[in-house]
């Protein structure tokens, strides 16, 4: 996972609430067994004309198709972004498309977690702050935003300044590009002890057969 500290970029405004993961990446692309190569499928349907003679052609009105927003590394959107399905493909597609951060008033829980595992910064600002940034980026595609993860601030080139909250541990992992499994395995001894006792609770086992003894060989 790529570590990020400070991100300065133009932004792509997507002023809609409740954008679900079916929109972020439609189901037909979930059949792939790879972890990469999802960039072209991001907002697949919204990027294309849906009806009429030009059906299937790029939709020039959609923000990600506009040449002036091409290099945006920040996506700005409204509340409850990433609701719906747990597909991590949504985070992969956003990240592989070139975004490094999403700014919104709120995010759905599973998406929030998936994004963190893929090094995406999710900055939660107030509704008003988000509206300000949305308006500025819509009016001026060169509008530049700086997200400082260490300071937990979002600033822009027009004097905007806001603070965002982030769980300290999530911040630490993002700043250092840490792998979760490795982090958990720091508690391997506690896990072995816990699991040994817990296996006696057969009423919490999926199957009645005796469990195989496990130890934390995974490093």
């Amino acid at each position, binding site marked *: 996972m790529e570590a990020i500290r400070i991100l300065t970029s133009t932004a792509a405004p997507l002023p809609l609430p409740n954008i679900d993961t*079916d929109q972020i990446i439609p189901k037909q692309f979930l059949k792939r067994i790879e972890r990469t190569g999802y960039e072209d499928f991001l907002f697949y349907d919204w990027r294309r004309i849906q009806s009429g003679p030009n059906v299937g052609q790029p939709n020039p009105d959609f923000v990600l198709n506009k040449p002036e927003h091409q290099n945006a590394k920040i996506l700005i959107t409204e509340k409850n972004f990433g609701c719906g399905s747990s597909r991590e493909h949504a985070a992969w597609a956003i990240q592989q498309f070139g975004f490094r951060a999403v700014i919104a008033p709120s995010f759905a*829980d599973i998406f929030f977690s*998936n994004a963190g595992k893929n090094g995406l910064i999710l900055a939660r600002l107030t509704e008003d702050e988000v509206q300000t940034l949305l308006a500025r980026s819509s009016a001026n595609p060169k509008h530049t935003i700086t997200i400082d993860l260490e300071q937990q601030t979002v600033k822009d080139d027009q004097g905007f300044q806001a603070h965002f909250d982030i769980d300290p541990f999530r911040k630490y992992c993002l700043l250092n590009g840490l792998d979760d499994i490795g982090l958990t*395995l720091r508690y391997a001894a506690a*896990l072995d002890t816990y699991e040994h006792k817990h296996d006696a609770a057969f009423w919490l*086992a999926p199957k009645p057969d005796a469990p195989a003894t496990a130890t*934390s060989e995974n490093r």
Partner: protein
Amino acid sequence: MSHPQTLGPQTLFEKVWQQHVVAEPTGEPTIIYVDLHLVHEVTSPQAFDGLRLAGRKLRRPDRHIATVDHNVPTTSAQDRLVIADQISARQVNALRSNCAEFGIEFFDVQDAAQGIVHMIGPELGATKPGMTIVCGDSHTSTHGAFGALAFGIGTSEVEHVMATQTLPQSKPKTFRINIEGKLPHGVTAKDIILDIIGRIGTDGATGYVVEYAGSTIRGLSMEERMTICNMSIEAGARAGMIAADETTFAYLKGRQFAPQGAAWDEAVAHWRTLRSDDGALFDREMTIHAAELAPSVTWGTSPGMVTRVDATVPSADDARSEADRKSYARALEYMDLTPGIRIEDIAVDRVFIGSCTNARISDLRAAAAVVQGHHVAATVRAMVVPGSQRVKKQAEAEGLDQVFRAAGFEWREPGCSMCLGMNPDILQPGERCASTSNRNFEGRQGRGGRTHLLSPAMAAAAAVTGHLTDIRKWPPTENAAPEEPVLAQGGAR
């Protein structure tokens, strides 16, 4: 087994959480033990690859159960054994070989226990009260109906569970929704949960684990409770839970993976302790009176855009906030609906009875009871996709398949099917579908498709009349002409 107890009354969620704490490092998420991981073909291949790449082992093969559901064709047994779509076939094969390589019990396409992953956990008796259950699928919340803490995770977390049998989790808040009283005629579990989502919004429970309680819930069957917990995610909840009781134990007793004999009694004694103590405090609480509920139907492109079947299509002005106003306007356009038309006047082209929300035997019985003696409208194509092999077999033993076929429904093989349309079962652009599934997002059932979520009985009624229909007026009166679909005004077709 000794578990640390805090003083004072605890909620069901807190009890289950506390019994699964492996480590509570300061300033970091709690490490929670995972009792059961359910695996399906779509969200697992990258996780297995991750294990291989890192040279890690699957820590506890006995705590994983796998099946194929999302991708499998539902047309015929033959189509399932040799999947024509090469990309789907490759994904199904990847799961097959991954399960063989890592030693995971796998229920393949034609296995008698195959089905939608959230159907087979309970059917096998693998899902039990007090467990922690995860799956790379948001509707894992279904298993909470047994008093388990069950939630959906992403693929990185799937890999984490495979390697460590744990997950780092920050503790969610608690939200109790009490539903009290007798359900009015025609109101089902689906209507309860749709009403809740409509009330609190699709992010109304974000950050919370919801416990459903109250006399209405206690009176529901396990299948009905699963329908409610299933759609907790549609309100943004991390999980939904219902405390186990005699109904739960009766459902589980004798199932393949349930404890037997003396072990059963011991298990039940433990499970009985898993209820919210009197006086336990929740971060949020809400009470709904069942008498206020009516059969519900969604009109828009989010499960929160829902109304009573006897109401009319709202306008953007009815939205609660400026942000919602924009989504309402967009949804009305996508759904091609004019504000003010009666919900019952909306004509449908397709009917889908299926999904992990409503494809259990009681759902099929309810739908069959409605269609018995009627025929699907000439303008409608209707299908029933049982949620699992067991449900299919049971329905066939009861002759329900014959009722559906005689009425003009397609009777399919089990799987997710048109709930998300990853297999060939999809809506065509512009087609309108009455669906018993859980999501009505744009394009969910096929690009350009329009979904109305409702209960199995109302889906069945819509198939017969050709339009959304208030089940409380069923059967239609003699002089009504059910084969003549009522065309919606405002170009709703």
